[in-house]
């Protein structure tokens, strides 16, 4: 029975913010796997800045949405993830999730395929779940 009264206070019972990063390899003339383990992300509330006004006076009402570049690390499966998973939503959505267990990430990907028709073949599914587990899971892959 508790709740933060002011964002961006973290929710009670949340996991530690600090995780060890794995060292990455610099290679010459060959590929190397580089897993970067992130601190759990907490979208910040920026300091006060003016509200961009919208003109509602004319017959045509219009806004422009800000761009949000993908912000997930390089790693095996990362390009599969981006190709299949940012068709319908930004990659920021992944980082604001809790650190799911691998089975939970698998269930999320299956839901995307079954309910929303994400064009993911079974092999790609494994790769994508592997990537998500590497970048945002409570368990190591």
């Amino acid at each position, binding site marked *: 029975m508790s709740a933060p009264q*002011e964002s961006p*206070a973290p*929710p009670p019972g949340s996991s530690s913010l600090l995780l060890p990063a794995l060292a990455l390899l610099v290679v010459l003339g060959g590929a190397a796997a580089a897993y970067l383990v992130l601190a759990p992300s907490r979208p910040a509330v920026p300091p006060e800045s003016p509200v961009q006004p919208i003109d509602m006076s004319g017959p045509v009402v219009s*806004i422009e949405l800000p761009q949000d570049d993908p*912000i997930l690390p390089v790693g095996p499966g*990362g390009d599969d993830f981006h190709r299949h998973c940012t068709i319908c939503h930004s990659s920021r959505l992944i980082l604001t999730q*809790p650190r799911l267990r691998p089975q939970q990430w698998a269930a999320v990907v299956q839901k995307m395929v079954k309910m929303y028709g994400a064009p993911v073949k079974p092999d790609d599914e494994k790769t994508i779940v592997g990537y998500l587990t590497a970048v945002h899971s409570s368990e190591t892959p």
Partner: protein
Amino acid sequence: MSDLLQPGEFRPVSRRELLLASAGGLLAALPGACNRATLPEPPRGPDAPMQFPGKVPMRVINSLPPCLETPWKYFATDLTPNEAFYVRWHLKNIPTTIDTRTWRLRLDGHVEKPIEWSLDELRRLPATELVAVNQCSGNSRGLFEPRIPGAQWYNGAMGNARWKGVRLDELLRRAGLKAGSVEVGFAGMDRGGLPSVPNYVKSVPLDELRKPEVMLAYEMNGEPLPLLNGFPVRLVIPGWFATYWVKAIERLTVFDKPFTGYWMNPAYRIPTTENAVEEPGNLCKTTVPITRMNVRSFFTGPGADRRLKVGETIDLSGIAFDGGSGINTVEVSADGGATWQPARLGDDLGRFSFRRWTLSLTPAKAGQQQLLVRATSNAGETQPSRVGWNRAGYMRNVYEELRLEVR
């Protein structure tokens, strides 16, 4: 090497870097490993703030489609300002341009005669106005344990506004419902990123739609609806969760049997248990669509970072609301729920609105004070003292807590 990361750091990458990585091997994407001219714009971290048009800086749950949470300080006023009102879309392609000269609302289906209205025509119909809370079904989802995937709101996916529009009953009467009509489906203009993504359509029984409080709203707090909150019109169904308050409606369809599209089933369903509570690992076998809100209450002041002295009076304040019977009492406990003191209720803006409450307390001893608040509705509904979980993270309404340091 200076480019090696230290433990605890990460280097975010943009789309261009990833394309380079997949096309040319990881070597091309590593910093310093190749021609700097091919590296993209400055990388954006996951906490990189984003501000949306017409909005103050808000907590970004998702950028596309936009899901933005209201900073807690905005609940200090009875009406939540439009520029701070939370935003929640499901589908990637939200309407960002509306030509009101060509936009029409269509009402069809099991009716004598389909009708279309322009925004001007809707505004000229007899209008109704009231204050009502709009709360996301998954408000507070980020606070459940075990954690649940989905939009990770804290408590700020809600807002209170004065809504103005035309009563649903008025529109239905004009179309002439045929015998056997049971529900009306509300279809939004937004679309998914793929044709396979189900369109956002919610369906509501006629009994509910005929109530005087249900309207198609075109104004929020005296202004046209912001585009991010559903311009030109949205459904306002006071007392029901916001999943039904379909934004940017293009079509109303009268059905002669219950509608079973994706966003009614399997999405947005709750277990058929008391207060929609179930245990992880022992999920209830039957579900129904979520509908009416349960009673909740919150602290809005003082902030948790206030430092107080023994003997200093604390002016507590907050809000409470329920699914439409109105608030009867709000009580605060300073001893973990053993005893409760009644708070003073503020102005009554109607049974669907936030009800403000205040209470002054003087802590007798130093240390960390844990305060709890609970509300009882006019219908006799109370809040649970312990958290009730369900698989989708809906309808959280446990006592809220405020911790204060007293020296």
